[in-house]
């Protein structure tokens, strides 16, 4: 029995894994990977959980695999950096139950801080990588990946990208197959990677890859499509479809297993075409791999940065029959914003007014960097806000001790969300305390992981499948870490926010302020909207500095207006208005 459903690549992977008998799904939310675990969590016969970070998720996955279960671990490309530590050793240990790791790349950086190509991880870590090009293939490969993982006793990375993850097509799905749980095997030589055992494991890994390379060369997941033999293009993932769209006559070598590459098959393909090109996004993994193997190839002349498109490939092939189109109009940018009514807006407002140096983090709060809030100076990776704040302080102290500067720098504040704090802010705090640091950290606890679409996390204690759970209490936790100055402030009170930030940044000790107010989108009912009394409004524009999307300033009347439908009744604008022009309306929203 099968049915056809319009599925995204992410959902298709969840279906494929489920049909392959996956028992456990674990991951950390991150665009464009998030919906995979969310889709899997809806299956009653699968246990799923969000972990505080990707390293933990992969380690949970490793434990489940050791036990003999099939497990799917999910994350985005930057998450794989966090999980790299266990991954590289799992390459040596191998698996027991099939362990499939979904990694979703974001070439073009639609919602990421970089566009690293995860292909590079597979040979580096010594694991197999599969490269689906669309949801149908993602479904098929997810189904197969567990068998491949068990057959070769290794982790299989399923490498997706935004155009696989967030593309939908009709996928014919079936039933959950019967799989027998493998027996738990207690074998220290396999699982304890101390040097004596690791040296043997390394040898085994190298031998194993000889077999896997043979498998890759024989596998139907890789295929040569011979057409016009003047040009052959090697490609994988969504890029395959761009190449086919650009010119349906060129010969294509479609890579489905990108590690180990089917080099013999590609060599044979190369010998049948006059010129061999490589088409890939954001990096030169395929080009380098082919060159190292002595297969003469050229990159298509396309940008190394960003996403490819069919037209870029046409240009790269030197075609002149490009689609005629007008140049894009210069249209004013529409950057994403903190929501109307976001209760944590006052923190950025106050930090900006103080002129603080703010080390920021990943999540909604990255948006605090956008004008007019201008409340963030750095954003590198999850958890970096806490550790970078310490780094700035250490460097400043040192420079002053050495007499290199006597310039007084503004107070330094690290800003991090609740989920991100649990992800990797915790270790930064422990480090700062341990090394006697003395800055200020602001944890913006909005009770949810908001940016990726409201996932639960350890700080609010809401689990993926709504099992009973415990909420990590930040105050006693921070005290246990050795932070002596911990205070909790309602972030919707601008005066209280300003006062807390001033006091704590002036304090000689390390301090953490927990700004606690739930995400405005958690409740669907809001207080009555605010409105501007135009007789009282003097057009001073102070309220516009909050960057609230519900508020506008009319250049002609020189007055402020509030869009009733957009206003969430938070009243922050009224708090900053000196002329009491902004007041709450009667009606409930």
């Amino acid at each position, binding site marked *: 029995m099968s049915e056809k459903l319009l599925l995204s690549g992410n959902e298709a992977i969840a279906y494929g894994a489920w049909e392959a008998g996956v028992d456990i799904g674990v991951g950390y939310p991150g665009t464009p990977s998030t919906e995979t675990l969310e889709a899997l969590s809806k299956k009653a016969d699968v246990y799923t959980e969000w972990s505080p970070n990707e390293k933990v998720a992969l380690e949970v996955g490793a434990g489940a695999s050791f036990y003999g279960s099939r497990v799917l671990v999910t994350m985005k490309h930057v998450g794989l950096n966090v999980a790299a530590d266990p991954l590289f050793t799992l390459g040596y240990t191998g698996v027991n139950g099939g362990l499939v790791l979904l990694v979703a790349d974001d070439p073009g950086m639609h919602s990421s801080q970089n566009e690293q190509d995860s292909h590079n991880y597979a040979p580096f870590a010594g694991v197999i990588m599969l490269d689906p090009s*669309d949801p149908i293939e993602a479904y098929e490969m997810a189904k197969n990946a567990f068998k491949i993982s068990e057959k070769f006793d290794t982790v299989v990375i399923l490498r997706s990208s935004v155009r696989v993850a967030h593309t939908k097509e009709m996928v014919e799905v079936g039933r959950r197959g019967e799989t027998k749980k493998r027996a738990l095997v207690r074998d220290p030589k396999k699982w304890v990677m101390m040097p004596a055992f690791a040296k043997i494991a390394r040898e085994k890994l190298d031998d194993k890859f000889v077999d896997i390379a043979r498998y890759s060369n024989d596998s139907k997941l890789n295929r040569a499509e011979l057409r016009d033999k003047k040009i052959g293009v090697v490609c994988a993932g969504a890029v395959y479809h761009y190449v086919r769209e650009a010119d349906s006559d060129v010969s294509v070598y479609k890579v489905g297993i990108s590690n180990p590459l089917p080099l013999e098959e590609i060599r044979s393909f190369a010998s049948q075409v006059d010129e061999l090109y490589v088409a890939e996004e954001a990096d030169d993994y395929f080009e380098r791999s082919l060159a190292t193997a002595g297969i003469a190839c050229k990159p298509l002349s396309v940008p190394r940065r960003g996403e490819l498109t069919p037209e870029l490939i046409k240009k790269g092939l030197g075609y002149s029959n490009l689609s005629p189109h007008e140049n894009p109009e210069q249209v004013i940018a529409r950057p994403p914003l903190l929501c109307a009514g976001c209760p944590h807006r006052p923190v950025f407002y106050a930090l900006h007014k103080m002129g603080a140096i703010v080390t920021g983090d990943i999540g909604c709060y990255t948006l605090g960097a956008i004008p007019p809030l201008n409340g963030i100076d750095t954003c590198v990776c999850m958890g970096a806000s806490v550790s970078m704040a310490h780094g700035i302080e250490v460097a400043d102290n040192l420079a002053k001790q050495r007499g290199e500067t006597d310039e007084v720098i503004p107070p330094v504040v690290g800003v991090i969300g609740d989920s991100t704090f649990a992800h990797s802010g915790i270790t930064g705090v422990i480090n700062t305390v341990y090394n006697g640091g003395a800055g200020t950290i602001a944890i913006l606890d909005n009770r949810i992981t908001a940016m990726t679409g409201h996932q639960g996390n350890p700080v609010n204690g809401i689990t993926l499948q709504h099992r009973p759970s415990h909420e990590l209490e930040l105050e006693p936790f921070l005290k246990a870490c050795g932070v002596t100055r911990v205070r909790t402030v309602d972030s919707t009170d601008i005066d209280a926010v300003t006062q807390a930030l001033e006091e704590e940044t002036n304090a000689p000790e390390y301090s953490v302020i927990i700004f606690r107010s739930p995400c405005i989108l958690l409740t669907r009912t809001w207080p009555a909207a605010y409105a501007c009394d135009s007789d009282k409004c003097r057009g001073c524009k102070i309220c516009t500095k909050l960057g609230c999307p519900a508020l506008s300033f009319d*250049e002609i009347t020189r007055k402020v207006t509030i869009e009733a439908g957009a206003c969430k009744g938070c009243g922050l604008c009224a708090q900053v208005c000196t002329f009491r022009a902004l007041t709450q309306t009667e009606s409930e929203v």
Partner: protein
Amino acid sequence: MDTKTVLLCGVGGQGTILAADILAKVAAAAGLKVKLSEVHGMAQRGGSVTTIVRFGEKVHSPVTDPGCVDALVSFEILEALRNAHFLSSEGIIFVNDELNEPMSVRIGAQKIENDPVAELKKRKAHFIPATETAISVGSPRSANVVLLGALSRVLPFDENLWLDVIEARVPEKTLEGNIAAFKAGRGFSSRMDKEER
């Protein structure tokens, strides 16, 4: 049929993704291959959203190139202009006659250069009072379905296919409003046909 490409765009929260989903399901129900591609990374925070739906006997790329879109459906004026270069020379634009100013404009920090409505008129855009119409048929959030109604006239799918998919896809209590919204949208398009004749 040749592969057709529809680009739907708007601002986060306007229902572009639901509209694209309905269109994709209609195309699939008509027996065509279909691919739908979304970019919605930060859309939830009021950023630009674009969704591409491609359908035909075979569909390779889920994304499209400038100059290749057959129909552009925009839920907002500035977003229509932002994506106008994707239209083919015979492409058609349906745009909700609503201007949603970016915050920088609303607070007086930046100005909109040129007149976006005039720019779109140069491209023969069809302006549709979708929000107004949606409110008048009692379903304020169904401006997206009004626009789908207008689009439906230029696509080769039977009206009943659309109605079946809408019925299956929208919440039951909004069904009546959505169907009225779809029909009103189709009405705009048929008036448009007459004007052109």
